[in-house]
């Protein structure tokens, strides 16, 4: 089985802890060798996932916890964000996501609901499970330049 390190954190489902988790992922991704740009993307993606949990699942009541897991692999970072405080309508959310178009009237603009759209845009792979609460699993790969191996092994035998 592929070797990896696993870090798990559990924080209260409150908005003030989103920034705390952002600092954590910044540290982990920096240690793994992600670029500055990728680290910024990871910070946004994980904040969006936790913000969804804080605002949707718990309806801003100060209770419940969010569990965040980091799977640290040689070539990628897997992030799991789970709440067990209820679920929201995934299909409705999927309908709501997508970029704005120039033709849309200002009145029709949505003020929320594009957290998942941003996660999709910023991460390499996103999976969502809605079976037991909501679990968002997202993956970001280290680019080859960042990993720094295999770059001199391109076949030249032709």
């Amino acid at each position, binding site marked *: 089985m592929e070797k990896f390190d696993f870090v798990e954190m559990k924080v209260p489902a409150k*908005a003030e802890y989103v920034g705390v988790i952002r600092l954590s992922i910044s540290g982990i991704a920096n240690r793994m060798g992600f670029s500055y740009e990728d680290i910024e993307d990871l910070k946004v993606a994980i904040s969006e996932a936790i913000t969804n949990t804080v605002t949707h699942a718990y309806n801003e009541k100060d209770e419940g916890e969010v569990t965040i897991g980091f799977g640290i692999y040689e070539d990628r970072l897997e992030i799991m964000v789970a709440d067990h405080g209820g679920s929201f309508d995934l299909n409705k959310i999927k309908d709501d996501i997508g970029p704005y178009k120039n033709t849309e009237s200002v009145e029709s603009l949505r003020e929320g609901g594009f957290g998942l759209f941003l996660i999709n845009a910023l991460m390499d792979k996103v999976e969502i499970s809605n079976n037991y609460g909501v679990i968002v699993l997202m993956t970001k790969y280290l680019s080859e330049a960042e990993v720094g191996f295999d770059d001199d092994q391109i076949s030249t035998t032709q």
Partner: protein
Amino acid sequence: MNLSVDITNESEKSIVNLSGEIDAYTAPQLKDAVLPLTKTPEHTVEIDLENVNYMDSTGLGVFISALKSTKEHGSKMKLVNIQDRVLRLFKITGLDEIMDINSAIRGGSE
């Protein structure tokens, strides 16, 4: 991890200087500060984002409600000195086409 909001009022415009991070925790504070400014007809609300080093969709949400309010009340909103990383989110979501955004950092020719 906090956000400071500093508002300077002139006769026809308000300048809002932001410094820090805009996320689920600080966005309500930003909304409370900016929305009332958009309710005066003919008024311009200029929001300076030069010192905002982090923003996510909660910030976009605040600017969308502010934009809606400007249309409703006949005022204007401008976002100025926005950093590349923050601007990127406006581009990904297509909001850069809808909002008045100026990304040029003062003296930013390197």
